[in-house]
């Protein structure tokens, strides 16, 4: 029995349907991340699970109990908001203990629970300050502390790290992961940042325009994306896509660029089919600065338009088949403008999508 279950959950605003019949089964103690571009419906879905938005159709169950019309306070959930939503007129201690105070718990128990949460999140020094006296990262931790104090059945996170700077975000990601290890509870986490999704999730749910495009472990969605959207959304830098056609047993692209059909897809293509070839920057590398390739393509000579040295590797922007593509260079050396290098593409790592449906050939 799933801890949280969504069955055909739909959301309308007037005549506009923004979430189209979503189905999700989330197991106990699983860390699920809903990820997607702005407006894909992930926050709306989360808020429906929380009870902050009404469900237009479908059922949501928590712990086996259908909760469609129940107010948030009866669902035994906790939520961490994007803007922290701390109570500005209360101290950190009062913020943390508020929900217990409302529930009528005795002061001793409140003090103990607050102390416990403060210890886990290193808030002991700030207990008597007001939110306005705290930094963004500290407020974030108070928001999380407020959530864990109640020992709910499900934790909901609504883009909690969006307002932090990059360095702090990286730190807090680790904190959240450690927290989940310590407090074994189901987590549903919403973000638009695919790095957060990949690093935190047990399972990723990728959403677009109110639909679930793919769900799976980070590894699954990275290695086996079901369509071009997922392929380009997950992974940084995004996957390169080249539209082409199957001609005479090879893949032919613009400007005369051709490669043999990759072995993995040999049985799946039809003559004359319009396809899209997908490969990541890690799969195209210049000679002498690459790992061993499983199925190396013939040499491809390209001029480097821009190079971005990252230290341990360099990102190269080149033009292929009339489009700008990115390649990686390991053990890098400085690259001059317009310098021509010889690249190889690892066909075994490539993906092939049908141009019409944008789905992976399988």
């Amino acid at each position, binding site marked *: 029995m799933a801890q949280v279950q969504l069955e055909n959950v739909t959301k309308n605003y007037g005549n506009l349907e923004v979430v189209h019949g979503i189905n999700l089964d989330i197991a106990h103690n699983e860390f699920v991340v809903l990820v997607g571009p702005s407006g894909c419906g992930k926050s709306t879905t989360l808020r429906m699970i929380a009870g902050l938005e009404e469900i237009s159709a479908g059922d949501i169950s928590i712990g086996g109990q*259908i*909760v*469609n*019309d*129940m*107010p948030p306070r*009866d669902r035994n959930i906790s939520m961490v908001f994007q803007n922290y939503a701390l109570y500005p007129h209360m101290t950190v201690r009062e913020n943390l203990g508020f929900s217990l105070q409302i529930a009528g718990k005795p002061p001793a128990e409140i003090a103990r629970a607050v102390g416990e949460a403060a210890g886990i999140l290193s808030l002991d020094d700030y207990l008597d300050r007001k939110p306005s006296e705290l930094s963004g990262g500290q407020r974030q931790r108070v928001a999380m502390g407020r959530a864990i104090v109640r020992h709910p059945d499900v934790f909901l996170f609504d883009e909690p790290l969006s307002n932090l700077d990059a360095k702090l975000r990286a730190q807090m990601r680790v904190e959240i992961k450690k927290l989940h290890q310590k407090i074994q509870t189901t987590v549903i986490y919403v973000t638009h940042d695919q790095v957060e999704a990949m690093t935190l999730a047990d399972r990723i749910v990728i959403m677009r325009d109110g639909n679930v495009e793919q769900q799976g472990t980070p590894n699954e969605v990275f290695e086996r994306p079901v369509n071009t959207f997922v392929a380009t959304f997950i992974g940084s830098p995004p996957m390169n896509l080249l539209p082409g056609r199957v001609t005479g047993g090879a893949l032919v692209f613009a400007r005369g660029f051709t490669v043999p059909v990759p072995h993995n897809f040999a049985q799946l293509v039809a003559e004359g089919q319009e396809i899209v070839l997908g490969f990541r920057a890690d799969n195209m590398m210049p000679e002498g600065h690459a790992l061993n390739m499983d199925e190396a393509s013939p040499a491809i000579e390209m001029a480097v338009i821009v190079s971005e040295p990252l230290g341990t590797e360099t990102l190269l922007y080149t033009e292929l088949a009339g489009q700008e593509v990115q390649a990686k260079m390991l053990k890098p050396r400085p690259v001059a403008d317009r310098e021509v290098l010889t690249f190889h593409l690892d066909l075994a790592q490539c993906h092939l999508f049908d141009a019409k449906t944008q789905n992976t050939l399988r």
Partner: protein
Amino acid sequence: MDINQQHRFKTRIGAALRHITLFVAMSIICIPGLWIVLNSFRPTVDIMAKPPVWVPRGLNLDNYRAMFGGAGEGGVPVVQYFTNSLIISVTSTVIAILIGMAGGYAFARYRFRGKSAIFIGLLLTRAVPGVALSLPLFIVMAKTGLIDTHVGLIMVYVAMNVPFTIWLIDGFFRQVPPDLAEAAEIDGCTRWQAFWKVEFPVAKSGVASAGIFAFLTSWNEYALASQLTRSTFSKTMPVGLRDFTSEFTINWGGMCALAVLMIIPALILTFLVQKHLIAGLTFGGVKG
């Protein structure tokens, strides 16, 4: 009934109750005014009828016609009162705005010793009850021959309006970034030019609503006007209405017509500026 149905039910009942209460509240707000308007169109016969006549039969403008014709409704020169009110209110508003702009700008842009003391002092003068102030004012104005003149009343109303006008305009000028005037000065304007070309236009709507507020205060004022005016030469509408009610306690229709006439300018002006009024009150208060 499962728990979800229970919650749905509770929500619906709550919504229904809320709507009913709102309806009742809005009725209480609207009915008195509408009743007055309605009765201003009814002949006195209908108003006095017993048992009471609910469905009006034959509405007409008789009451209004009587007001404007000749010496007005049984001797109450409505047109004269209206004109007096208009002249006095408009003049005092214009002057109060000018003084208010000067004062408001000073408070918004400059720092000086005793600023808050002066500010509080200004506001406190507004707290003096009209009737208490009217006593000594009456003595002073009698001695200086200003009783029953437009000038006297105008001066009094300017003093009445200046504090609140300064408060509102101060709030609005604070919304205007000081950098604007500085940029204008760098571009070649004198301080005076910078003010009129740059800062004033931005705060214009605030000044307008402060003006309307001042106008309404003067238009509606009774306590001071009732004692500082003596004849139709300077009596204003509120005084006229009061006189009317004490002299002609039976002519309700006529009184209603007078009341309607009194409120029309106020309604129009308040309508125009409702958004700004609220903004003005909360800006003035929160920034205050």
